[in-house]
């Protein structure tokens, strides 16, 4: 198979799109990044603020809409499940709650973390302990079936999520319209539609497996609820980044959620009234997610290898590298003059504007792409790993945060068995554009030397002792 620039772009569209949006707004201060809770220590400011906010909400009188139980009652009385309002309604619900947490924790930068039950299937440790620093832990909930709940792979594992993300029709991915809906009257909000595999699978199953408060409509009483739904929201965002379109139906887009949510205003609160169409651009709403850990389905390039001869510039780098668990490995590519000139055309992200508002934050249009193609990969024969990819980091290591500006994303080897034996081996296409553009505005600007650093780290609960894999070669394509 000969693959030209157009085909390669198509093959890489999912990850290119996935990587494009987050950091395009990264320089805009009003767009805050929601983080993976597994990357946060129990005393991380985000979790400290979340505890403080919960404690404050529980101390408020029930007459205050910010009261903890009142917040759960919003869900009990209003939440749509089993229809196409499921995703946008919960997005708005999280937003309003997040703003209350900011106010009550006195942390203007607070953002909800998410629980990625695919990468980290065990209930986050910070939520499982009864105490924190010798005091009752506000993240703990004693009604759960166990504090060691682990979400099995047949519910939310990589392959299961790949199947869910592979769905292209919104009314299957995001559940269907209510049966018979013919106008945007509020009475349709909780009318039954067809619950899709995303909602009936990972969403419902995580609720039920945690049990206790989580199996009822008062589930927001359990602090993990908000992180669970934050991850649901993240997966929806990821689905959109893969090029999947939400429905254009006006019965969905024009639907309003009025007088349901409240956000702080001065000393009191004010209703947070939203329309579905206003819930679709998360950057405009003031937040984003870290680049996703991409599944093999979106990264694998079919053998025989892609013919890159029709691309603008292709540079080849170091070959036959063995990469070992917890050991950073740098794959270096030296660009010649034309290649460096092509790279120079990649525009930087916009510098921070003075006092931007969340509503004014808009993604910057990309001007080109920088792709890394890792070729002839021999996958690990034992266990699995999350391979973190950094670009030109001075000190990439397993301890380097995925918030680091050099971080480009991660991949794993889940599900590669069916691909690994093909002629030409396994190849992985990785989009570095986002990171290059981010580094362009710092002292780390890339000119003619690109170091793609692979840092394999263990995945909790997955064997990785003595794990290693081999990369046959690397190419950098600038298109």
């Amino acid at each position, binding site marked *: 198979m000969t693959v030209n620039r157009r085909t390669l772009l198509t093959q890489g569209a999912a990850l290119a799109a996935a990587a494009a949006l987050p950091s395009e707004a990264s320089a805009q201060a009003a767009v805050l990044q929601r983080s993976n809770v597994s990357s946060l220590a129990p005393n991380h400011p985000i979790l400290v603020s979340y505890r403080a906010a919960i404690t404050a909400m529980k101390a408020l009188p029930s007459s205050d809409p910010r009261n903890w139980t009142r917040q759960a009652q919003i869900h009990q009385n209003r939440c749509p*499940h*089993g229809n196409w309002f499921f995703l946008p309604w919960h997005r708005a619900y999280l937003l309003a709650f997040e703003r209350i947490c900011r106010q009550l924790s006195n942390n203007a930068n607070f953002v909800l973390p998410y629980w990625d039950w695919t990468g980290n299937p065990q209930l986050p440790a910070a939520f499982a302990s009864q105490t924190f620093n010798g005091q009752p832990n506000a993240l703990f909930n004693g009604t759960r*079936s*166990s504090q060691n709940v682990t979400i099995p792979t*047949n*519910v939310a594992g990589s392959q299961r999520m790949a199947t869910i993300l592979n*769905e*292209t*029709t*919104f*009314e*299957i991915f995001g*559940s*269907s319209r209510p*049966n018979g809906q013919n106008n945007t009257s509020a009475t349709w909000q909780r*009318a*039954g*539609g*067809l*619950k*899709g*595999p995303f909602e*009936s*699978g990972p*969403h*419902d*199953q995580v*609720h*039920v*497996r945690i*049990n206790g408060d989580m*199996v*009822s*409509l008062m*589930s927001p009483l359990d602090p993990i609820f908000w992180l669970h739904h934050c991850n649901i929201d993240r997966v929806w965002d990821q689905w959109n980044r893969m090029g999947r*379109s939400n*429905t*254009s139906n006006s019965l969905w887009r024009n639907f309003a959620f009025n007088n349901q949510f409240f956000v702080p205003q001065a000393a009191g609160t004010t209703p947070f009234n939203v329309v579905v169409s206003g819930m679709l651009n998360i950057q405009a709403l003031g937040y984003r997610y870290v680049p996703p850990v991409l599944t093999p389905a979106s990264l694998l390039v079919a053998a025989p290898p892609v013919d890159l001869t029709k691309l603008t510039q292709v540079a080849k780098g170091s070959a036959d590298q063995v990469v070992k668990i917890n050991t950073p490995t740098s794959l270096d590519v030296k660009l010649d003059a034309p290649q460096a000139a092509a790279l120079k055309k990649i525009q930087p992200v916009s510098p921070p504007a003075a006092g931007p508002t969340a509503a004014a934050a808009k993604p910057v249009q990309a001007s080109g792409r920088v792709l890394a193609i890792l070729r002839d990969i021999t996958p690990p024969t034992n266990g699995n790993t999350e391979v973190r990819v950094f670009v030109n980091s001075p000190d990439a290591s397993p301890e380097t945060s995925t918030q680091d500006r050099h971080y480009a994303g991660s991949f794993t080897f889940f599900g590669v068995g069916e691909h690994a034996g093909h002629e030409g081996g396994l190849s992985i296409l990785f989009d570095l554009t986002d990171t290059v553009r981010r580094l362009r505005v710092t002292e780390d600007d890339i000119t003619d030397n690109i170091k793609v650093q692979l840092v394999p780290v263990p995945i909790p609960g997955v064997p990785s002792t003595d794990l290693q894999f081999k990369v046959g070669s690397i190419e950098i394509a600038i298109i």
Partner: protein
Amino acid sequence: MFRLTRRLAGAAVAAALAAFGTMSGTAAAQPTNLTATPGTPATVALPAARTPDAVLLDLYVRAYTPPRRGSVEAIVSLGPTGSEMEIARFAVFPSDPFFATSPRELRAYRFDASAALTAFQGRALMVQVRLVPIDESNSPEGAKLTLGRVEVNPRPAN
């Protein structure tokens, strides 16, 4: 759609089978059991005559009772009798007991069954819904799930 009440349980079975006949253009319904309990699956026959684009399996749940302890999930399988392949798992959320007294109250689940329906094209199939405990340390005793209707449908436009 049809009304479902406790009194009309028998009529509900007949109506469900009639719905299949209408959908598929055949009326060769097999004996069915619309209620799943631990150890006894719900089974619904799917006639052989189906339109090729009907790849989505829609399950309408009429009633659910959670187990006395712990929780259960439902495993949905589809295939010729004795050779069903699993196509989905789901858990009922919220998990409070419910009983639909009108068609609008049925809880509906949609699954992509294209692999099974393609693999067994032209053959009579059985839809099977089994209840299994999520936590093996808890007995699923008391759990019950009753189907109201089962359909196969084409994919909707986006």
